[in-house]
């Protein structure tokens, strides 16, 4: 099934205008900060919120067409939704929860039982069908919610931050399972998340939404390596420096010049990974590379390293080892010299 959506909606301070297309068996991640309109977009796709304009169609069948006055209500759309908090009906057993969608669609009891049991086994909840949702752990509840969404063989699967309510360890396990189920699912999947790891691990393609607009699309790898906005760059852990290519240098929009390894021209992004930035207390001499004066604006532990935010003409983020950080005796506001090899700077057209 191919999901095509072109959705426009004004809702409070949100001004949403997003186009997206998801092919058969494809998983599209909608990545963006809180308040970007991701969940609103998902509610529109689910039919819970009529769009102000545009069209939503699956395999050519319109679900929403504002111009033609078409709006298929949520309960008539062949879809499955998994919400952030699982939202299993607390008054029903786990098995009855999974059967719910089959029951509303008139499937006979024996058939429902069999299908529900099969799905519970498939998501690893064998024998827990008679429990109440309150007796399940967070991970188990989210697995049951996935079974409930998929048991009716939907054409479209919508996932709204399906892992964010789980603790870190459970998230890891459930993410891996979810990946397996998504691979087996033949319909279109839209995954809404603010966690880049979810997007990278689960999606075939990523759409980045900020303030109601698509700011970047691509494979997870493309988005990760060549971010086009500060938000994406921060998620990927890169410093993003927009500028103009002039041969082997990039003149930055914010002032300053970056030496790069390849010839470029016109508007470009220069992206620098934190681990390729080195810090010195005195200006280093020697091989030709980028050297900038900066001040230490902030430092936070980041794994075995310390992530240093640098303020100056060229704003950068640097990862230094905890040992080096201590040796340099750095304090907030301290003056440092930051260096980056030209070959370590990624350049790509804007």
């Amino acid at each position, binding site marked *: 099934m191919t999901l095509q959506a072109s959705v426009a909606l004004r809702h409070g301070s949100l001004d949403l205008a997003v186009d997206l297309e998801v092919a058969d068996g494809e998983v599209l991640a909608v990545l963006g900060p809180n308040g970007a309109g991701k969940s609103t977009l998902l*509610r529109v796709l*689910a*039919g*819970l919120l009529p769009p102000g304009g545009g069209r939503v169609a699956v395999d050519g069948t319109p679900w929403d067409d504002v111009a033609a006055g078409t709006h298929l*209500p*949520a*309960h*008539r*759309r062949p*879809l*499955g*939704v998994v*919400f952030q*908090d699982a*939202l299993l*009906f*607390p*008054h029903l057993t786990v098995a009855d929860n999974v059967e*719910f*969608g089959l029951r*509303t*669609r008139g499937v006979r009891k024996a058939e429902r039982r069999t299908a529900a049991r099969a799905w519970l086994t498939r998501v690893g909840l064998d024998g827990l069908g008679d429990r109440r949702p309150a007796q399940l752990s967070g991970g188990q509840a989210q697995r049951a919610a996935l079974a*409930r*969404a998929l048991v*009716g063989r939907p054409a479209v699967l*919508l996932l709204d931050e399906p892992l964010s309510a789980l603790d870190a360890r459970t998230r890891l396990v459930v993410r891996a399972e979810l990946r397996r189920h998504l691979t087996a699912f033949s319909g279109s999947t839209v995954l809404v998340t603010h966690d880049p790891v979810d997007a990278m691990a689960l999606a075939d393609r990523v759409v980045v939404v900020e303030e109601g607009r698509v700011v970047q699309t691509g494979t997870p790898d493309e988005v990760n390596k060549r971010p086009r906005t500060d938000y994406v760059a921060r998620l990927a852990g890169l410093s993003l420096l927009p500028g103009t290519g002039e041969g082997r240098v990039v003149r930055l929009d914010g002032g300053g010049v970056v030496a790069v390894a390849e010839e470029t021209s016109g508007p470009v992004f220069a992206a620098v990974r934190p681990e390729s930035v080195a810090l010195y207390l005195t200006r280093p001499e020697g091989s030709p590379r980028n050297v900038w004066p900066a001040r230490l604006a902030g430092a936070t532990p980041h794994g075995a390293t310390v992530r240093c935010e640098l303020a100056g003409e060229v704003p950068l983020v640097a990862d230094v080892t905890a040992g080096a950080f201590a040796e340099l005796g750095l304090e907030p506001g301290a003056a440092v010299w930051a260096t980056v090899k030209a070959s370590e700077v990624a350049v790509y057209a804007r």
Partner: protein
Amino acid sequence: MSRAPDGGRIPAPLLVPAALGTAFLVLPVVGLLVRAPWSSLGAQLAAPGVGEALRLSLISATLATLVSLVLGVPLAWVLARSRIRGRSVLRALVTVPLVLPPVVGGVALFLVLGRRGVLGGPLYDAFGISIPFTTTAVVLAETFVAMPFLVISVEGALRAGDARFEDVAATLGADRWTTFRRVTLPLVAPGVAAGAVLCWARALGEFGATITFAGNFPGTTQTMPLAVYLALQREPEAAIVLSLILLAVSLATLLLLRDRWLGRAVP
């Protein structure tokens, strides 16, 4: 609780009024128990008319509660969930009987459903049906006064409930009616039960609207509160016995509610 560092000592300006308030609420009930003719209780209970009034009270209060459930739960849903215009006006109108003196309610019912009333007139002319001074009138008067308690209780439960469950039901193919039956109603069932008990207790004690609209005929419209009032004029001992019965029923209601309300008041 660990919040009170001085062992929860109550300041005098609060303690004295609180104690007086408690005494004021409890003493009349104690007086009722003290003055009760315990020795002749059996005979009084068996007196003709007592059983009749009690049966009529229980039946009419239960019927009024059933009518309130059938009409009031959907009304509460409309107030809590729908997006119709003038919803706040509707809510104000629905809760008018809460603040209206019951006698006024009785008069109003009489003007609408009486033999010369707006609805009662045509009803009598066409079918010869007259509502006032019948058991039906008792049920209607009690419903009028008690239903707002149910509506407000259920609306509160609906608002406090998580409406996202209804979204989930919709994405699982349930239309709004199916969602209401299989999800909304089961989730607010405790609120509906509490509202029904409150509604029933209010209907059981109804006096003003009943005596105005339905009159005071033993066997058809004389409920317990009416019987108590009448008995007090002639034989106070009988009034005490009837009051004791109502007290027992009220206490039983309170016990039913205890887990929901009193239990919740203590964290």
